[in-house]
């Protein structure tokens, strides 16, 4: 149960010492209740009070860390069911399944996908190593997979093979996805011994709940919940109900990230796997395991994920700079717009369709759209002049025509004054008119 400010206040020393940075203990308590200040900020709480409070103010869904070093990832830690209520925090991760006989064939395909999209590296973050009954082959597979530097998921319900695998890969902090109602004691012991996250699965949601509760009783709270592969309907129902129980109904037993194997739910059906991966990106999959990841799937799914995991309060921004399009060079016309990602994508898409070589100049406009940036003073003749100096546009580009967005046509005169020698041309108001505009401009 979440505590109210007054309940927290009762446990504070009530001395108004200000050491926490707040004027009074009451103010501090109110902020803790809102979740804006961690309880540990008060240096004078008794250990007992701290324990009570940390339990009560702990987030409803745990943040679970997997992987080590550069391959470390955080799962979970979500506080809302819908992104518009606040934001989602830990983007879901994608894994591709490999087995002893198919690893060498699949690895090049996995490694091929590695690109940047609006400041994020997009790649297959995890490799799901499937155990097929041969311990020695499994250890070899795990060794090879670990050598890729990616974090592993060990899909293995045999404690003996799991131990052998962990002995060669535990340093990389894999997920041991193998606890069931039958073997959980042994598996939990293994996971604790090697300090790795344990994946828990069961035949249905009730057995899953009981198994998680039983593992928690053993003192292991470093878990992820596998929603199972019985049917698409059951997997989705479990994923939703697990997350909803944790966040809406405050049931901490299900306060863990999830793992969904769409590769098994739709074996051999790439298109169905795409649809399911999209579904679980939207609704509550933390790790999505696929049979393969084609470049086509990656482009669509990673784009979707990036959208969904954007903080609604922080617009997506592209890096300011010079973006040559259609083979643009120093002699090509310059076009400028703002750094709001959506504007960038829409505008650059249309510009590319025009086929005209050009340089797209993106200046820092605080991540706002054209009109908003203009109204907020982030896009002005001054900001464009500053951008030109900062990036030495005159030194880098010989062409002296600059196309500005139609919505800020009012800036034309002032830009002409500030950028002497440049011909300023006003583009149409809407991006859809750009193709026609540039074809005519070029004619």
């Amino acid at each position: 149960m979440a505590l109210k400010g007054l309940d927290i206040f009762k446990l504070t020393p009530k001395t108004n010492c200000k050491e926490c940075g707040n004027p009074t203990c009451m103010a501090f308590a109110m902020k803790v209740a809102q979740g804006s200040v961690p309880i540990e900020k008060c240096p004078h709480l008794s250990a007992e009070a701290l324990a009570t409070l940390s339990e009560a103010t702990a987030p409803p869904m745990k943040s679970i860390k997997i992987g080590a070093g550069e391959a470390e990832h955080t799962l979970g830690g979500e506080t809302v069911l819908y992104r518009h209520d606040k934001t989602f925090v830990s983007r879901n991760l994608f894994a591709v399944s490999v087995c002893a006989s198919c690893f060498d064939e699949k690895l090049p395909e996995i490694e091929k996908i590695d690109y940047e999209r609006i400041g994020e590296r997009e790649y297959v973050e995890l490799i799901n190593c499937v155990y097929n009954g041969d311990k020695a082959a499994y250890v070899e597979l795990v060794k090879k997979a670990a050598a890729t530097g990616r974090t592993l998921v060990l899909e293995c319900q045999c404690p003996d093979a799991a131990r052998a695998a962990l002995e060669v890969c535990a340093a990389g902090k894999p997920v041991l996805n193998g606890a069931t109602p039958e073997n959980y004691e042994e598996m939990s012991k293994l996971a604790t011994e090697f300090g790795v996250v344990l994946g828990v699965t069961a035949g249905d949601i009730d057995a899953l709940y009981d198994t998680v509760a039983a593992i928690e009783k053993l003192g292991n709270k470093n878990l992820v919940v596998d929603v199972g592969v019985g049917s698409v309907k059951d997997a989705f129902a479990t994923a939703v109900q697990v997350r909803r129980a944790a966040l809406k109904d405050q049931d901490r037993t299900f306060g863990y990230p999830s793992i969904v194997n769409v590769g098994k739910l739709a074996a051999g059906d790439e298109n169905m796997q795409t649809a399911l991966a999209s579904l679980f990106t939207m609704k509550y999959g933390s790790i999505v395991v696929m049979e393969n990841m084609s470049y086509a799937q990656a482009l669509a799914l990673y784009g979707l994920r990036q959208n969904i995991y954007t903080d609604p309060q922080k617009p997506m921004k592209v890096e300011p700079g010079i973006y040559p399009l259609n083979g643009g060079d120093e002699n090509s016309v310059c076009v400028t717009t703002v750094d709001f990602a959506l504007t960038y994508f829409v505008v650059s898409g249309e510009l590319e369709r025009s086929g005209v070589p050009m340089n797209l100049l993106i200046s820092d406009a605080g991540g706002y759209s054209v009109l908003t940036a203009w109204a907020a003073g982030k896009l002005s003749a001054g900001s464009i002049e500053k951008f030109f100096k900062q990036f030495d546009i005159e030194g880098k580009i010989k062409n002296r025509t600059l196309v500005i967005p139609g919505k800020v046509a009012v800036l034309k005169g002032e830009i002409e004054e500030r950028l002497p020698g440049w011909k300023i041309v006003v583009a149409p108001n809407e991006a859809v008119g750009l193709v026609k505009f540039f074809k005519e401009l070029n004619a």
Partner: protein
Amino acid sequence: MAFKRNPQKFPGATKTVVIGTGDRAVTLGGENVMPLYSFDAPIENRPKVGVEISDSGYDKNVPGIAAYYAGAETIADIAKKAAAMPGADFIAISLEGADPNGENKSVDECVELCKAVGEAVDLPIVVLGCKNHDKDAKLFEKISDALQGKNILVMSASEENYKTVSASAGLAYSQKIGAESAVDINLAKQLNVLISQMGVAADNVVMNVGSAAAGYGFEYVASTMDRVKAAALAQNDNMLQNPIVTPVSDDAWSVKESIVSEADFPEWGPTEKRGVAMEITTAAACLASGSNAVILRHPESVAAIAKFIGELM
């Protein structure tokens, strides 16, 4: 201690809208659970899949589409093949060629095309305009007249032309109309209010609350739909309870990922595969957010999304 199931129960439900006639009529909406949450309560009318065809013929540059429609000469042939596509619930004819800034096909020509489609298939017909509000208003009026009794859906009435579209398609010819707004719950509600004030009954109106391809601002689409469904169900807001129909194909097949050639981006692989993945990803995400129907173009996408919906019900 067993897991305590706590299905969400809501005071509101979405309205039902029927398009088409006879055995093949399709009922959209009616659910009182969050999108695809068939485990909370049964979803009587599963989400539907529409197949998009165009006045300009089928896309011969996409091998899978070209192969599927091969041999279809007329719009009637194309419509028949589209109707036979496994997973198709309705046919959506796009009149992109009517755009005054493009081919500018005449209203009469478009009416003839729609009549031909109406005669060729018994599936419900959705008419997608050309995105020019004035032209759309004229098109929808004449097409609604010509296809009287077919119970078609015209998409869409917007803030600019809702009066004409409501008066003609909605009231004079008793067809169904779509209310289109741009990813904003307040705009969506406002347009529904305006259309209802024109006297069009709620069970004759669906919404298109805006769409985008995955990766291209889809967060606005998702959050708008999340909020619309929450208002419809939890707050019982009867001005946001109309079913949502989302045209996915147009956005999905016009982003860079779906059009640049393999020659320009060799590591990306075949163009068609990228378009299909984009269409499927976007459609599944729309359905997860609350679309009661999606409109798709590629036979593979239609099959996959139909299967996807079937397995979740």
